[in-house]
């Protein structure tokens, strides 16, 4: 047994050395991009598997963006699917009705981006009630927001009303999903490890103390809601062009609950956790597909057990080293080294 532990420790240290290497991330990104391009253009992998990978990517974006509000900031949003719907409809309207079909492939990222920006704009509005209300009441605000978006879309005949909207081409390909997923992980990681990110954490820990320690809590909340809803909108645009059909019921409370399950399965306030949660949940849903409806009985049961036995999720409040910037990971070490050098210098 002790030997096994030693082996594990050496492997772990090797892994840390690998991820600390300055070529690790460039290599990973280029390899991932090349693989996804190859996979989608030469049918290296089964189309069904490709579709699942696309869903995994979309779910990672959704999970990580909701984790920003629910995990890092400690508020409780149940309206995430609403932002997703806004992104999905804006992007779809652009590619189907506005953009010329000949240039659609080039303009697809613009459409997705526009969907994200539209959702972010609405996120700005939802941030306003969060200034004064928090906890249960803020949860209700987000819930009401999600319901309003859904029933609002149902009442707009021009975009299909309750029947939904179709006509999108299958523009969501593996490389695009890879690109947007990496972007969302990177940006949210950057936010978390910044002055504003620490503000977000302090709001979760103690909002009043945070305000008294000079954190502009309103500014922080606006940033969090805008960034979170932006990426939810991006995910919506990708989702719409993967499925090629959307309707308002796809973005109801059940969808928001799905995202919540992924957040709390993987772990709150953790990037690694968000990825783990999204991957496990998406794949598990596919693997259990033969069970039919019983799969949907099993899933909520799992959530309840998870809450009772591990309420913060697999990686709750912990982060894989992979995602911590070196400056933060080794802040104390760096400072001590520098101080030692400064002390040694005169001697």
């Amino acid at each position: 047994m002790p030997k096994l532990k030693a082996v594990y420790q050496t492997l772990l240290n090797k892994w840390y050395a690998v991820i600390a290497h300055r070529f690790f991330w460039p290599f990973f990104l280029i390899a991932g991009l090349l693989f996804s391009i190859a996979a989608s253009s030469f049918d290296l992998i089964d189309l069904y598997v490709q579709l699942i990978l696309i869903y995994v990517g979309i779910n990672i974006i959704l999970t990580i963006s909701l984790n920003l509000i629910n995990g890092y900031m400690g508020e409780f949003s149940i309206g995430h699917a609403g932002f997703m719907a806004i992104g999905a409809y804006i992007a779809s309207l652009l590619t189907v009705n506005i953009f010329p079909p000949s240039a659609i492939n080039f303009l697809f990222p613009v459409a997705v981006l526009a969907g994200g920006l539209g959702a972010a704009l609405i996120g700005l509005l939802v941030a306003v009630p969060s200034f004064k209300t928090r906890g249960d009441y803020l949860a209700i605000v987000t819930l009401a927001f999600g319901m309003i978006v859904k029933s609002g879309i149902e009442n707009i005949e021009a975009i299909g009303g309750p029947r939904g909207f179709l006509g999108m081409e299958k523009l969501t390909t593996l490389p695009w999903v890879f690109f947007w997923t990496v972007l969302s992980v990177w940006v949210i990681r950057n936010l978390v490890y910044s002055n504003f990110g620490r503000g977000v954490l302090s709001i979760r820990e103690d909002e009043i103390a945070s305000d008294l320690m000079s954190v502009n809590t309103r500014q922080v909340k606006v940033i969090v809601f805008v960034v979170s809803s932006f990426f939810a909108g991006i995910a919506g645009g990708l989702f719409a062009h993967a499925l090629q059909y959307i309707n308002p019921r796809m973005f109801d409370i059940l969808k928001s609950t799905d995202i919540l399950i992924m957040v709390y399965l993987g772990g709150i306030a953790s990037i690694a956790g968000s990825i783990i949660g999204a991957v496990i949940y998406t794949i598990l849903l596919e693997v259990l597909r033969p069970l039919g409806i019983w799969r949907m009985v099993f899933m909520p049961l799992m959530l309840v057990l998870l809450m009772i036995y591990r309420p913060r999720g697999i990686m709750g409040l912990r982060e894989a080293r992979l995602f911590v910037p070196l400056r933060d990971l080794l802040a104390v070490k760096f400072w001590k080294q520098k101080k030692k050098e400064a002390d040694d210098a005169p001697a």
Partner: protein
Amino acid sequence: MAYIFQQILNALQLGSIYALIALGYTMVYGILTMINFAHGDLFMVGAFFCFLIAVYLKLSFVPTLLLSVLGVACLGVVIERLAYKPLRNAPRVSAIITALGVGLFLENFTLALSPYPKHIPALIADKTWLIGSVSISSLQIIIIALSLSLMLVLDFIVQRTKAGMAMRAISWDKTVVPLMGVPVNKIISLTFAIGTGLGGAAGMMYGLAYPVIDPYMGIMVGWKAFISAVVGGIGNIRGAMIGGFILGSVEIMVAAFLPSTYRDFVAFTLLLILLIFRPYGILGKPNPQKV
């Protein structure tokens, strides 16, 4: 004029169902400061119990009502013991998510057992009276009368009995009251039993009024009742009743003057506006944060 009276009657019918369900939300919130998001699904289970009892046991109205309410109340207590009790000291969010999970479980479990919508047989002889040009059905009278009397009984229990006093005490203070010899677990179970039982009764009445029932029927009605509880001031029992009637009236009025698809839109917009200007509801009190 007659049209308006007719609409008021309809509003009373819908409002009393919302109010009954809202009471369950508000009672549980009052005592545990937890939003029991599974409550709407317990309402659905109430309708299904009523279906099972009426179809397979072929009982009449009163025993069906009693058995359904008892069944849902037991289920409510079991859920509290198994799923919520372990989380009483956990972060609030965990309890909310668990409740969402329990709700999903109830919906999908029912769906797995009963994939097609069911039709509740008429348990009450359908009679309609005309007063002027306003028509009143026997069902409407029973729903409104029964809801009002259940609410009066509940108000009596909470305001006048020893158990009710214990409930109010626990919702007032959660650290000291248990030290005073109040059997907290029993009182919480009782609260769940009464709250979910009322939801079950509402489920049955809703099922009689709109006889086609399906496993997802509890979602929207549940949220609406929840809005009622918030509008009235969550945790406040009389507020829940008022909120239920307000929401019922608003919905009926919207349906009377606008396309009915706007109903949800208006209901939730109303909630949002209220939350922004009076976050603690009509009868609720603001809760200042201590420093």
